[in-house]
């Protein structure tokens, strides 16, 4: 099993703990990752808001690089996943648009041929690797840990492209969390937007949205949130501190990337999983490991 690792812009600039923990769990599981030389921004919603052709061409450019590597793409960010997956699906069907885009890419000797696939990390773990195989490798499961899973919009919608299961009740990440021994609690606003995409256009709206989400998590009794997107993490972690200050509330909810959570139960040390970069200390959840930190 080998994938082209599409890092995206936000992870190396803000959340190297997500990168490190992903590489560490993949090593333990035997999933090979290759970095994408020459990559660029995926063509996210902000670009789509400005110019549709640029949005498609930026995605196609990265898809063409993965095609030249002969590998499927594994994305870690929902924004990158959503943009690349939809562009890949659309360009495979729309010959006219493909020609238009390839005309732009010609200057770099790149061509979108439609030979690669785009998957999110959790889809690779769930579909390509398998929960049962992960279960066999777990050495130190959690006990009595209540975790609130946040999917993030672009991992589940539009469902015709995301293919993350039932968009009304996705289960992939919940099952991946439950295999670690943690309980995936239900919480009212689980499938609603965290507000990250409007941080750039209207911060008040973004803060309003994440406050509602955090209130909802807190009311569920969860001890942490589990994240699969660095953009959502900005809201759940960085902005959590801001909301606490602005509204005089206290959440104290560690926002943990899924591979960090899984990594602990595989016996990988918190340092190697980048926990020292988590701005909200995750120590309370370490004590929920059956045997503590190995």
């Amino acid at each position, binding site marked *: 099993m080998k994938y082209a690792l599409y*890092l995206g*812009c*936000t992870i*190396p*600039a*803000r959340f*190297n*703990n997500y*990168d*490190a923990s992903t*590489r560490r769990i993949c090593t333990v599981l035997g999933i090979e990752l290759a*970095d*994408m*030389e*020459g*990559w*660029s*921004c995926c063509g*996210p*919603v*902000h*670009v*789509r*808001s*400005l*110019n*549709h*052709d*640029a949005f498609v*061409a*930026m995605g196609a*450019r990265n898809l063409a690089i993965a095609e030249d590597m002969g590998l499927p793409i594994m994305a870690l960010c929902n924004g990158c996943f959503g943009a690349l997956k939809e562009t890949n699906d659309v360009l495979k069907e729309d010959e006219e*648009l493909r020609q238009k885009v390839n005309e*732009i890419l010609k*200057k*770099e000797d*790149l061509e979108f041929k439609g030979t690669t696939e785009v998957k999110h990390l959790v889809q690779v773990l769930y579909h390509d690797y398998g929960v049962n195989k992960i279960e066999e490798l777990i050495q130190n499961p959690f006990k009595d840990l209540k975790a609130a899973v946040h999917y993030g*919009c*672009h991992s589940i*919608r*539009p*469902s015709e492209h995301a293919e993350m299961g039932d*968009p009304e009740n996705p289960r992939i990440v919940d099952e991946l969390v439950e295999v670690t021994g943690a309980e995936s609690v239900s919480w009212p606003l689980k499938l*609603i*937007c965290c*507000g990250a*995409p*409007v*941080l*750039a*256009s*209207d*911060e008040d*709206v973004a803060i*309003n*949205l994440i406050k509602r989400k955090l209130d909802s998590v807190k009311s569920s009794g969860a001890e942490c949130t589990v994240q699969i997107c660095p953009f959502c993490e900005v809201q759940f972690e960085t902005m959590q501190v801001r909301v606490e200050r602005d509204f005089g509330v206290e959440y104290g909810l560690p926002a943990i990337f899924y591979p960090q959570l899984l990594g602990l139960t595989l016996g990988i040390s918190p340092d*190697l999983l*980048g926990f020292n*970069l988590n701005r909200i200390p995750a120590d309370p959840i370490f004590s929920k490991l059956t045997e503590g930190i190995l």
Partner: protein
Amino acid sequence: MMSEKKPIRLNDLDPKFKYEVFNNPDGKNLFYCFQCGTCTATCDVAELMDIVPHKLIRMSILGMRERVLNSKAIWICTTCFLCSEKCPQKVDPSQAFFAMKNIAAKEIGMPDGIKAFAESIYDIGRSAEVGDFEEEDREMLDIPKVPVTNVDGVRNILDVTSLSKMIKG
């Protein structure tokens, strides 16, 4: 909104506006809207919008160009795609808003945060720079250096699609 209660004057309408939206791939389903209001009912930020989603669609079809393009609502849309998922007519309202924003960005302008985002893509090929601290973090975590970005490749895309002109003036 008080202003919405004023009568709509035919002379103020731009009958071609709907085709501008429709001709963008993200606006291709605009005309299917039958005003059921499901998008507005499902929208998590409708209460914060100056014009709610189903009205933006109707106003575009009617040709209320200025009001639509100057609305805050198109930029408040979180692109969560809940409305697109629920729309019984497959209008994909949040995608239609992309089409409206494409026109607004070209003619009126864009929010500062989005401009900064696009400028960064033009300058370094990515939306965010990896600073010295982050490079140190990666070294400490013993993970490879961030693979190199081909800035010229991205800039070519922005130039050819005229996005460069929009952000650089």
